[in-house]
Protein backbone atom coordinates (compact mmCIF):
# COMPACT_ATOMS: atom_id res chain seq x y z
CA UNK A 1 0.00 0.00 0.00
CA UNK A 2 1.52 3.31 -1.01
CA UNK A 3 0.31 4.91 2.24
CA UNK A 4 3.01 2.92 4.03
CA UNK A 5 5.93 4.57 2.28
CA UNK A 6 7.63 6.52 5.07
CA UNK A 7 10.55 7.70 2.91
CA UNK A 8 8.27 9.56 0.52
CA UNK A 9 6.30 11.04 3.38
CA UNK A 10 9.49 12.21 5.11
CA UNK A 11 10.76 14.00 2.01
CA UNK A 12 7.48 15.73 1.33
CA UNK A 13 7.03 16.88 4.92
CA UNK A 14 10.55 18.26 4.90
CA UNK A 15 9.80 20.26 1.76
CA UNK A 16 6.69 21.80 3.33
CA UNK A 17 8.51 22.65 6.54
CA UNK A 18 11.14 24.65 4.69
CA UNK A 19 8.45 26.89 3.26
CA UNK A 20 7.03 27.78 6.66
CA UNK A 21 8.61 30.72 8.44
CA UNK A 22 10.45 30.00 11.67
CA UNK A 23 10.47 26.26 11.28
CA UNK A 24 13.83 24.63 11.87
CA UNK A 25 15.22 21.33 10.72
CA UNK A 26 14.76 19.84 14.18
CA UNK A 27 11.05 20.60 14.18
CA UNK A 28 10.84 19.20 10.68
CA UNK A 29 12.37 15.95 11.86
CA UNK A 30 9.93 15.79 14.77
CA UNK A 31 7.08 16.19 12.31
CA UNK A 32 8.59 13.48 10.13
CA UNK A 33 8.85 11.01 13.00
CA UNK A 34 5.33 11.83 14.09
CA UNK A 35 3.99 11.41 10.59
CA UNK A 36 5.84 8.12 10.20
CA UNK A 37 4.16 6.72 13.32
CA UNK A 38 0.86 8.21 12.21
CA UNK A 39 0.89 6.79 8.67
CA UNK A 40 1.80 3.34 9.96
CA UNK A 41 -1.06 3.58 12.41
CA UNK A 42 -3.68 4.68 9.97
CA UNK A 43 -2.71 2.67 6.94
CA UNK A 44 -4.25 -0.48 8.31
CA UNK A 45 -7.35 1.35 9.51
CA UNK A 46 -8.04 2.89 6.15
CA UNK A 47 -10.03 -0.01 4.78
CA UNK A 48 -10.47 -0.52 1.04
CA UNK A 49 -9.57 2.67 -0.82
CA UNK A 50 -8.93 3.36 -4.46
CA UNK A 51 -5.43 4.24 -5.64
CA UNK A 52 -6.68 7.78 -6.21
CA UNK A 53 -7.90 8.05 -2.64
CA UNK A 54 -4.62 6.72 -1.30
CA UNK A 55 -2.73 9.32 -3.35
CA UNK A 56 -5.09 12.08 -2.20
CA UNK A 57 -4.68 10.95 1.41
CA UNK A 58 -0.93 11.26 1.09
CA UNK A 59 -1.27 14.84 -0.16
CA UNK A 60 -3.62 15.66 2.73
CA UNK A 61 -1.19 14.11 5.26
CA UNK A 62 1.71 16.07 3.81
CA UNK A 63 -0.21 19.30 4.17
CA UNK A 64 -1.46 18.49 7.69
CA UNK A 65 2.09 17.47 8.64
CA UNK A 66 3.15 21.10 8.35
CA UNK A 67 0.72 22.10 11.09
CA UNK A 68 2.24 19.63 13.56
CA UNK A 69 5.18 22.03 13.71
CA UNK A 70 2.84 24.53 15.29
CA UNK A 71 1.79 22.04 17.95
CA UNK A 72 -1.26 20.64 16.16
CA UNK A 73 -2.02 16.95 16.69
CA UNK A 74 -3.29 15.08 13.68
CA UNK A 75 -6.55 13.24 14.28
CA UNK A 76 -6.10 9.54 13.51
CA UNK A 77 -8.97 9.37 11.09
CA UNK A 78 -9.75 10.59 7.60
CA UNK A 79 -12.48 10.79 5.03
CA UNK A 80 -11.89 10.02 1.36
CA UNK A 81 -14.35 10.34 -1.49
CA UNK A 82 -15.00 11.98 -4.84
CA UNK A 83 -15.61 15.64 -5.60
CA UNK A 84 -17.37 16.78 -8.74
CA UNK A 85 -17.88 20.23 -10.23
CA UNK A 86 -20.75 22.07 -8.49
CA UNK A 87 -21.19 19.17 -6.05
CA UNK A 88 -19.23 19.96 -2.90
CA UNK A 89 -18.57 17.11 -0.51
CA UNK A 90 -19.97 17.84 2.94
CA UNK A 91 -18.69 16.11 6.08
CA UNK A 92 -20.05 16.57 9.63
CA UNK A 93 -17.56 17.05 12.46
CA UNK A 94 -18.05 17.77 16.14
CA UNK A 95 -15.72 20.44 17.50
CA UNK A 96 -14.93 21.81 20.94
CA UNK A 97 -14.78 25.49 21.82
CA UNK A 98 -11.29 26.47 22.92
CA UNK A 99 -9.53 24.11 20.52
CA UNK A 100 -8.01 25.29 17.26
CA UNK A 101 -8.49 23.15 14.17
CA UNK A 102 -6.98 22.81 10.70
CA UNK A 103 -8.87 20.84 8.06
CA UNK A 104 -6.49 19.71 5.33
CA UNK A 105 -7.63 18.31 2.02
CA UNK A 106 -5.69 16.73 -0.82
CA UNK A 107 -7.04 15.88 -4.27
CA UNK A 108 -5.46 14.47 -7.40
CA UNK A 109 -5.46 15.22 -11.10
CA UNK A 110 -7.78 16.06 -12.92
CA UNK A 111 -8.76 18.35 -10.00
CA UNK A 112 -6.80 21.57 -10.48
CA UNK A 113 -8.00 23.73 -7.64
CA UNK A 114 -9.97 22.91 -4.51
CA UNK A 115 -11.30 24.91 -1.59
CA UNK A 116 -12.25 24.06 2.00
CA UNK A 117 -14.99 25.93 3.83
CA UNK A 118 -16.66 25.48 7.19
CA UNK A 119 -20.30 25.93 8.19
CA UNK A 120 -21.92 25.99 11.61
CA UNK A 121 -24.78 23.74 12.70
CA UNK A 122 -27.32 26.12 11.12
CA UNK A 123 -25.55 25.99 7.77
CA UNK A 124 -24.04 29.46 8.04
CA UNK A 125 -20.49 29.79 6.74
CA UNK A 126 -17.95 30.67 9.42
CA UNK A 127 -14.80 32.72 8.97
CA UNK A 128 -11.71 30.59 8.51
CA UNK A 129 -8.04 31.10 7.83
CA UNK A 130 -7.47 29.63 4.40
CA UNK A 131 -4.59 28.03 2.57
CA UNK A 132 -5.00 27.12 -1.10
CA UNK A 133 -2.42 25.64 -3.41
CA UNK A 134 -3.99 23.94 -6.40
CA UNK A 135 -4.87 20.38 -5.50
CA UNK A 136 -4.42 20.96 -1.79
CA UNK A 137 -6.22 23.34 0.53
CA UNK A 138 -6.76 23.86 4.24
CA UNK A 139 -9.04 25.85 6.52
CA UNK A 140 -8.12 26.90 10.06
CA UNK A 141 -10.85 27.53 12.61
CA UNK A 142 -11.20 28.23 16.34
CA UNK A 143 -14.83 27.57 17.35
CA UNK A 144 -16.33 29.75 20.06
CA UNK A 145 -19.14 27.26 20.57
CA UNK A 146 -18.94 23.47 20.93
CA UNK A 147 -21.09 21.37 18.66
CA UNK A 148 -21.56 20.21 15.11
CA UNK A 149 -19.93 21.90 12.14
CA UNK A 150 -19.75 20.96 8.46
CA UNK A 151 -16.63 20.84 6.33
CA UNK A 152 -17.27 21.52 2.66
CA UNK A 153 -14.76 20.46 0.03
CA UNK A 154 -15.34 22.26 -3.29
CA UNK A 155 -13.85 21.60 -6.68
CA UNK A 156 -13.06 25.08 -7.98
CA UNK A 157 -11.24 24.11 -11.18
CA UNK A 158 -10.78 20.82 -13.00
CA UNK A 159 -12.80 17.65 -13.32
CA UNK A 160 -14.14 15.05 -10.88
CA UNK A 161 -11.44 13.57 -8.70
CA UNK A 162 -10.66 11.66 -5.52
CA UNK A 163 -10.05 13.71 -2.41
CA UNK A 164 -9.15 13.05 1.18
CA UNK A 165 -9.75 15.10 4.34
CA UNK A 166 -7.78 14.93 7.58
CA UNK A 167 -7.86 17.30 10.51
CA UNK A 168 -5.55 18.50 13.22
CA UNK A 169 -6.26 20.16 16.56
CA UNK A 170 -4.55 21.78 19.50
Amino acid sequence: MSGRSPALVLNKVGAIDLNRPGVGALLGMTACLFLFVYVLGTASAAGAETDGEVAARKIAFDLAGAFTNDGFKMRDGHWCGTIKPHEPALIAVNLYAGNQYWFSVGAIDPAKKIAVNLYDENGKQVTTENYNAGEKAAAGFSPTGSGQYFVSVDLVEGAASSFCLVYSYK
Partner: protein
Amino acid sequence: MFPMRRSLSATLLLVLPVALAADVPRLSRDQLAKAVRSDSISIPTPGELFAALEKPGKPNWSGQYRAPIPMTYRNRAQIALNLGGLIADGFIAVEAKDSQQVKNIGSDIIKLAKALGVSEHLLSRGNSINEFAENDEWDVLQEELEATQNEVKSSMQTHSDQDLVILVSVGGWIRGTQVVSAAIMQNYDERSAKLLRQPALISFIHSKLDDISPGLRAEPLVKGVNEQLVGIEKLVSFPAAKAPSVDEVRKVNEAVGKVMEAIQNKTDAK
Protein backbone atom coordinates in the same frame (compact mmCIF):
# COMPACT_ATOMS: atom_id res chain seq x y z
CA MET B 1 -23.38 68.86 5.43
CA PHE B 2 -22.28 67.40 8.70
CA PRO B 3 -25.76 66.25 9.78
CA MET B 4 -26.25 64.74 6.31
CA ARG B 5 -22.98 62.84 6.58
CA ARG B 6 -24.00 61.66 10.03
CA SER B 7 -27.33 60.48 8.69
CA LEU B 8 -25.60 58.67 5.82
CA SER B 9 -23.23 56.99 8.29
CA ALA B 10 -26.15 55.96 10.45
CA THR B 11 -27.96 54.50 7.44
CA LEU B 12 -24.83 52.60 6.44
CA LEU B 13 -24.40 51.28 9.96
CA LEU B 14 -27.94 49.98 9.88
CA VAL B 15 -27.86 48.58 6.37
CA LEU B 16 -24.34 47.16 6.22
CA PRO B 17 -24.74 44.37 8.79
CA VAL B 18 -27.97 43.30 7.10
CA ALA B 19 -26.27 43.30 3.71
CA LEU B 20 -23.26 41.41 5.07
CA ALA B 21 -25.49 38.86 6.80
CA ALA B 22 -27.35 38.30 3.55
CA ASP B 23 -24.04 37.74 1.77
CA VAL B 24 -22.81 35.01 4.13
CA PRO B 25 -23.15 31.74 2.23
CA ARG B 26 -25.55 29.25 3.77
CA LEU B 27 -26.24 25.57 3.34
CA SER B 28 -29.82 24.38 3.13
CA ARG B 29 -31.33 22.00 5.69
CA ASP B 30 -31.43 19.38 2.97
CA GLN B 31 -27.70 19.76 2.32
CA LEU B 32 -26.93 19.53 6.04
CA ALA B 33 -29.06 16.40 6.36
CA LYS B 34 -27.20 14.76 3.49
CA ALA B 35 -23.74 15.50 4.92
CA VAL B 36 -21.51 12.49 5.45
CA ARG B 37 -21.27 11.32 9.04
CA SER B 38 -18.59 8.82 9.84
CA ASP B 39 -17.28 7.15 12.97
CA SER B 40 -13.71 7.90 11.87
CA ILE B 41 -14.11 11.66 11.59
CA SER B 42 -17.45 12.80 13.04
CA ILE B 43 -16.90 11.41 16.55
CA PRO B 44 -14.17 13.36 18.35
CA THR B 45 -11.50 11.44 20.23
CA PRO B 46 -11.18 11.76 24.02
CA GLY B 47 -7.89 13.55 23.29
CA GLU B 48 -9.74 16.40 21.56
CA LEU B 49 -12.17 16.78 24.43
CA PHE B 50 -9.38 16.74 27.02
CA ALA B 51 -7.31 19.25 25.02
CA ALA B 52 -10.23 21.70 25.14
CA LEU B 53 -10.79 21.08 28.86
CA GLU B 54 -7.19 22.03 29.58
CA LYS B 55 -7.47 25.49 28.02
CA PRO B 56 -8.78 27.42 31.06
CA GLY B 57 -6.40 25.54 33.38
CA LYS B 58 -4.94 22.08 33.86
CA PRO B 59 -7.41 19.82 35.67
CA ASN B 60 -6.36 17.31 38.29
CA TRP B 61 -6.09 14.45 35.82
CA SER B 62 -4.86 11.83 38.27
CA GLY B 63 -7.90 12.63 40.42
CA GLN B 64 -10.04 11.25 37.58
CA TYR B 65 -8.57 7.75 37.65
CA ARG B 66 -10.99 4.92 38.41
CA ALA B 67 -10.36 1.54 39.99
CA PRO B 68 -9.22 -1.20 37.58
CA ILE B 69 -12.13 -2.82 35.78
CA PRO B 70 -12.59 -6.60 35.38
CA MET B 71 -10.79 -8.24 32.47
CA THR B 72 -13.03 -11.29 32.36
CA TYR B 73 -16.11 -10.07 30.49
CA ARG B 74 -17.63 -12.64 28.14
CA ASN B 75 -20.19 -10.50 26.37
CA ARG B 76 -18.60 -9.07 23.21
CA ALA B 77 -20.67 -5.88 23.29
CA GLN B 78 -19.61 -5.27 26.88
CA ILE B 79 -15.96 -5.85 25.98
CA ALA B 80 -16.23 -3.35 23.10
CA LEU B 81 -17.84 -0.71 25.32
CA ASN B 82 -15.19 -1.20 28.01
CA LEU B 83 -12.42 -1.11 25.44
CA GLY B 84 -13.56 2.38 24.44
CA GLY B 85 -13.68 3.41 28.09
CA LEU B 86 -10.18 2.07 28.69
CA ILE B 87 -8.81 4.00 25.72
CA ALA B 88 -10.27 7.16 27.26
CA ASP B 89 -8.54 6.17 30.52
CA GLY B 90 -5.30 5.92 28.55
CA PHE B 91 -5.75 9.52 27.37
CA ILE B 92 -6.30 10.61 30.99
CA ALA B 93 -3.08 8.90 32.07
CA VAL B 94 -1.24 10.59 29.19
CA GLU B 95 -2.63 13.98 30.24
CA ALA B 96 -1.50 13.22 33.80
CA LYS B 97 1.93 12.24 32.39
CA ASP B 98 1.78 9.07 34.50
CA SER B 99 3.91 6.46 32.74
CA GLN B 100 3.02 3.58 35.11
CA GLN B 101 -0.70 4.22 34.71
CA VAL B 102 -0.28 4.39 30.92
CA LYS B 103 1.49 1.03 30.97
CA ASN B 104 -1.20 -0.53 33.19
CA ILE B 105 -3.99 0.70 30.94
CA GLY B 106 -2.10 -0.27 27.80
CA SER B 107 -1.82 -3.79 29.17
CA ASP B 108 -5.56 -3.88 29.98
CA ILE B 109 -6.43 -2.65 26.48
CA ILE B 110 -4.45 -5.52 24.97
CA LYS B 111 -6.13 -8.02 27.32
CA LEU B 112 -9.62 -6.90 26.33
CA ALA B 113 -8.67 -6.75 22.66
CA LYS B 114 -7.38 -10.33 22.95
CA ALA B 115 -10.75 -11.37 24.35
CA LEU B 116 -12.30 -10.06 21.14
CA GLY B 117 -9.72 -11.90 19.05
CA VAL B 118 -8.19 -8.76 17.59
CA SER B 119 -4.85 -8.84 19.32
CA GLU B 120 -2.26 -10.00 16.76
CA HIS B 121 -1.11 -6.60 15.57
CA LEU B 122 -2.06 -4.98 18.82
CA LEU B 123 0.66 -6.78 20.75
CA SER B 124 3.22 -4.58 19.03
CA ARG B 125 1.06 -1.54 19.87
CA GLY B 126 1.19 -2.60 23.54
CA ASN B 127 4.98 -2.73 23.37
CA SER B 128 5.11 0.70 21.73
CA ILE B 129 2.85 2.17 24.41
CA ASN B 130 5.20 0.83 27.11
CA GLU B 131 8.26 2.15 25.32
CA PHE B 132 6.81 5.62 24.74
CA ALA B 133 5.60 5.76 28.36
CA GLU B 134 9.05 4.88 29.66
CA ASN B 135 10.58 7.62 27.53
CA ASP B 136 7.95 10.22 28.48
CA GLU B 137 6.93 10.72 24.83
CA TRP B 138 3.48 12.02 25.67
CA ASP B 139 2.49 13.49 22.31
CA VAL B 140 3.42 10.31 20.47
CA LEU B 141 1.60 8.28 23.12
CA GLN B 142 -1.62 10.12 22.44
CA GLU B 143 -1.30 9.34 18.74
CA GLU B 144 -0.48 5.74 19.59
CA LEU B 145 -3.66 5.44 21.65
CA GLU B 146 -5.73 6.83 18.78
CA ALA B 147 -4.00 4.46 16.38
CA THR B 148 -4.65 1.56 18.75
CA GLN B 149 -8.34 2.42 18.86
CA ASN B 150 -8.48 2.59 15.08
CA GLU B 151 -6.64 -0.69 14.76
CA VAL B 152 -9.13 -2.36 17.09
CA LYS B 153 -11.98 -0.98 14.98
CA SER B 154 -10.31 -1.96 11.74
CA SER B 155 -9.76 -5.48 13.04
CA MET B 156 -13.41 -5.66 14.10
CA GLN B 157 -14.46 -4.73 10.57
CA THR B 158 -12.21 -7.42 9.13
CA HIS B 159 -13.66 -9.99 11.50
CA SER B 160 -17.25 -9.07 10.57
CA ASP B 161 -17.71 -7.38 13.95
CA GLN B 162 -18.67 -4.09 12.29
CA ASP B 163 -21.49 -3.62 14.78
CA LEU B 164 -19.04 -3.50 17.66
CA VAL B 165 -17.11 -0.55 16.21
CA ILE B 166 -19.67 2.04 17.30
CA LEU B 167 -19.70 0.51 20.78
CA VAL B 168 -15.98 1.26 21.19
CA SER B 169 -16.68 4.90 20.26
CA VAL B 170 -19.67 5.03 22.60
CA GLY B 171 -17.63 3.64 25.51
CA GLY B 172 -14.92 6.23 24.88
CA TRP B 173 -17.38 9.11 24.65
CA ILE B 174 -19.24 8.12 27.82
CA ARG B 175 -16.05 7.71 29.86
CA GLY B 176 -14.64 10.96 28.43
CA THR B 177 -17.83 12.84 29.31
CA GLN B 178 -17.84 11.33 32.79
CA VAL B 179 -14.30 12.59 33.39
CA VAL B 180 -14.88 16.03 31.89
CA SER B 181 -18.13 16.62 33.79
CA ALA B 182 -16.44 15.51 37.04
CA ALA B 183 -13.51 17.86 36.42
CA ILE B 184 -15.89 20.76 35.69
CA MET B 185 -17.84 20.09 38.88
CA GLN B 186 -14.62 20.20 40.90
CA ASN B 187 -13.53 23.51 39.40
CA TYR B 188 -16.53 25.13 37.72
CA ASP B 189 -15.83 27.39 34.80
CA GLU B 190 -18.45 28.48 32.24
CA ARG B 191 -16.10 28.03 29.30
CA SER B 192 -15.37 24.43 30.25
CA ALA B 193 -19.02 23.71 31.01
CA LYS B 194 -19.94 24.65 27.44
CA LEU B 195 -17.82 21.72 26.21
CA LEU B 196 -20.59 19.39 27.30
CA ARG B 197 -22.84 20.65 24.51
CA GLN B 198 -22.88 17.79 21.97
CA PRO B 199 -26.50 17.05 20.92
CA ALA B 200 -25.63 16.24 17.29
CA LEU B 201 -22.97 13.81 18.40
CA ILE B 202 -25.38 11.80 20.56
CA SER B 203 -27.95 11.92 17.80
CA PHE B 204 -25.35 10.41 15.44
CA ILE B 205 -24.43 7.73 17.99
CA HIS B 206 -28.14 6.91 18.32
CA SER B 207 -28.54 6.52 14.58
CA LYS B 208 -25.50 4.22 14.47
CA LEU B 209 -26.89 2.12 17.33
CA ASP B 210 -30.19 1.88 15.49
CA ASP B 211 -28.28 0.45 12.51
CA ILE B 212 -26.69 -2.46 14.34
CA SER B 213 -28.11 -5.95 14.09
CA PRO B 214 -31.42 -6.47 15.92
CA GLY B 215 -29.86 -9.23 18.02
CA LEU B 216 -27.08 -7.02 19.36
CA ARG B 217 -29.41 -4.07 19.78
CA ALA B 218 -31.73 -6.21 21.90
CA GLU B 219 -28.96 -7.23 24.32
CA PRO B 220 -29.85 -5.79 27.75
CA LEU B 221 -26.66 -3.76 28.11
CA VAL B 222 -26.77 -2.25 24.60
CA LYS B 223 -30.50 -1.59 24.92
CA GLY B 224 -29.94 0.05 28.28
CA VAL B 225 -27.12 2.27 26.99
CA ASN B 226 -29.21 3.30 23.98
CA GLU B 227 -32.17 4.17 26.20
CA GLN B 228 -30.02 6.16 28.64
CA LEU B 229 -28.59 8.17 25.75
CA VAL B 230 -32.05 9.64 25.14
CA GLY B 231 -31.94 11.31 28.53
CA ILE B 232 -28.30 12.33 28.16
CA GLU B 233 -29.05 13.92 24.77
CA LYS B 234 -31.57 16.21 26.47
CA LEU B 235 -29.06 17.16 29.16
CA VAL B 236 -26.39 18.21 26.64
CA SER B 237 -28.78 20.04 24.27
CA PHE B 238 -28.52 23.50 25.81
CA PRO B 239 -28.17 26.59 23.53
CA ALA B 240 -24.65 27.29 22.23
CA ALA B 241 -24.37 30.62 24.03
CA LYS B 242 -25.52 29.31 27.41
CA ALA B 243 -23.24 27.52 29.84
CA PRO B 244 -24.87 24.79 31.95
CA SER B 245 -24.93 25.49 35.68
CA VAL B 246 -23.01 23.39 38.20
CA ASP B 247 -26.24 21.56 38.94
CA GLU B 248 -26.81 20.83 35.26
CA VAL B 249 -23.23 19.57 34.93
CA ARG B 250 -23.85 17.34 37.95
CA LYS B 251 -26.91 15.88 36.22
CA VAL B 252 -24.83 15.05 33.14
CA ASN B 253 -22.17 13.48 35.35
CA GLU B 254 -24.72 11.36 37.20
CA ALA B 255 -26.35 10.22 33.96
CA VAL B 256 -23.10 9.17 32.25
CA GLY B 257 -21.86 7.72 35.56
CA LYS B 258 -24.90 5.47 35.70
CA VAL B 259 -24.26 4.24 32.14
CA MET B 260 -20.56 3.71 32.88
CA GLU B 261 -21.44 1.68 35.96
CA ALA B 262 -23.66 -0.59 33.87
CA ILE B 263 -20.93 -0.95 31.25
CA GLN B 264 -18.24 -2.00 33.69
CA ASN B 265 -20.49 -4.05 35.96
CA LYS B 266 -19.29 -7.64 35.76
CA THR B 267 -22.63 -9.09 36.90
CA ASP B 268 -24.26 -7.71 33.76
CA ALA B 269 -22.01 -9.81 31.56
CA LYS B 270 -23.58 -12.85 29.95
